[in-house]
């Protein structure tokens, strides 16, 4: 029985897991959960994940949440190519460093920018809070500086010379601001080159996973800067 994957492509970590499964050709049964319809809040879904979030996997009865835990588990279980999550302790520690740091940096600010421009106005019916949006854009900018100066300082990929699960998660998070009309690569050639490199390595699965985001850009009349 194939592993079940509960996800919503609206969510960056869900996107990362689904895209990774397609790229590595791990078989799975797709179980989409519509967050916008509140499907994750049902009692039925709580049985699968008491934390009521996506993504979640059910691998033959073994339930696992948290996209990073899931990505690591898949790498080890399926004995994927070492570069995805290196077995060398120090190289692995470097990937872990990014995966942890990104929670309160890349993920937080990229999400806030998108939320302020796209989600909050839609849910409240009020116009966007400009000050909030500008503040989050500022925080995101500092994060992007840090990524260029530290995680991409000496390496073609995040803290590594080869693509890894850090890049899978990183690119999904950094795509999100495009949905709010924010081009994270503007004035950042190192980041731009990395995004191009990672996208190309993941096509056509990259475009598949981001179809909804491209639609958001179109709906809001935002120029499709994210598309190569």
């Amino acid at each position: 029985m194939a592993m079940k994957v509960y996800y919503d492509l609206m969510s960056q970590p869900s996107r990362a897991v689904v895209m990774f499964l397609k790229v590595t050709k791990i078989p799975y049964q797709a179980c989409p959960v519509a967050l916008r319809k509140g499907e994750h809040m049902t009692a039925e879904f709580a049985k699968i994940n008491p934390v009521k979030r996506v993504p979640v996997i059910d691998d033959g009865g073994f339930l696992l949440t948290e996209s990073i835990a899931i990505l690591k588990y898949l790498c080890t279980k399926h004995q994927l190519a070492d570069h995805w999550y290196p077995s060398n302790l120090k190289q692995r520690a470097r990937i872990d460093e990014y995966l942890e740091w990104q929670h309160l940096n890349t993920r937080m600010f990229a999400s806030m920018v998108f939320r302020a421009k796209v989600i909050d106005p839609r849910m409240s019916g009020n116009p966007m809070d400009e000050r909030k949006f500008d503040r989050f854009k500022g925080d995101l900018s500092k994060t992007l500086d840090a990524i260029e100066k530290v995680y991409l300082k000496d390496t073609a990929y995040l803290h590594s010379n080869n693509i890894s699960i850090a890049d899978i998660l990183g690119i999904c998070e950094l795509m999100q601001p495009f949905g709010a009309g924010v081009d994270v690569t503007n004035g950042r050639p190192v980041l731009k080159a990395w995004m191009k490199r990672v996208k190309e390595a993941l096509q056509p699965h990259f475009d598949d996973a981001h179809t909804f985001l491209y639609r958001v850009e179109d709906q809001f009349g935002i120029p499709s800067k994210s598309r190569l």
Partner: protein
Amino acid sequence: MGIDFYYIAGSTPCRSVLMTCKAAGVELNLKGVDLQNGEQKEAAFTKINPMQLVPAIDDNGFRMGESRAIMGYICGKYAPDSPLYPKDLQKRATVDEMMYFDIGHFGKSIGDYVLPQVFRKQPADKEKESAMKEALDKLDRVLDKKQYATGNALTVADFCLATSLTLADAVPVQYNLKPWNNVATWFQRMKNLPYFTECNKAYYEFAKKMTSK
């Protein structure tokens, strides 16, 4: 030579690493970083951790930050057979799961509620309290019929969750955990660990100092 550990005593992620090392029997050379006076932004510390954050380690030239990544590295190198960060695939995945539940959800919601009250003397925010209560509900469900967060063995995930919870336990909040019976029982079990007080008292003292000013 040992591992140089750059930290401040009250910091939640620093305390998680301290507890891990006590449990694993790993010696640390403690090096306090004067965050209040901006030592983390100076060139010397930036060489240790370009992110200018604590905790950070220098293990004979190998330098890194981020507490959970550090805990994984230390266990991997110095206590590879310890159940603290187990080798078994599913057990390890569950530990990872709970560590990330803490950083993005559990610990975050507690910090969001408590820290403005401690650092900025702001009144308690009902909405943030609601988010914290929801996170407590979730941990309570996870802990059902378990001694620790991932089962019957103490792991690094328990250190992350417990150090986060100390924020709500200390003044000024001193949150009543009785409605969450599993959480309350587990937290007391953590407090009974022989190194808990030593590793965490600095935060309780810090919170007292901030609140009495």
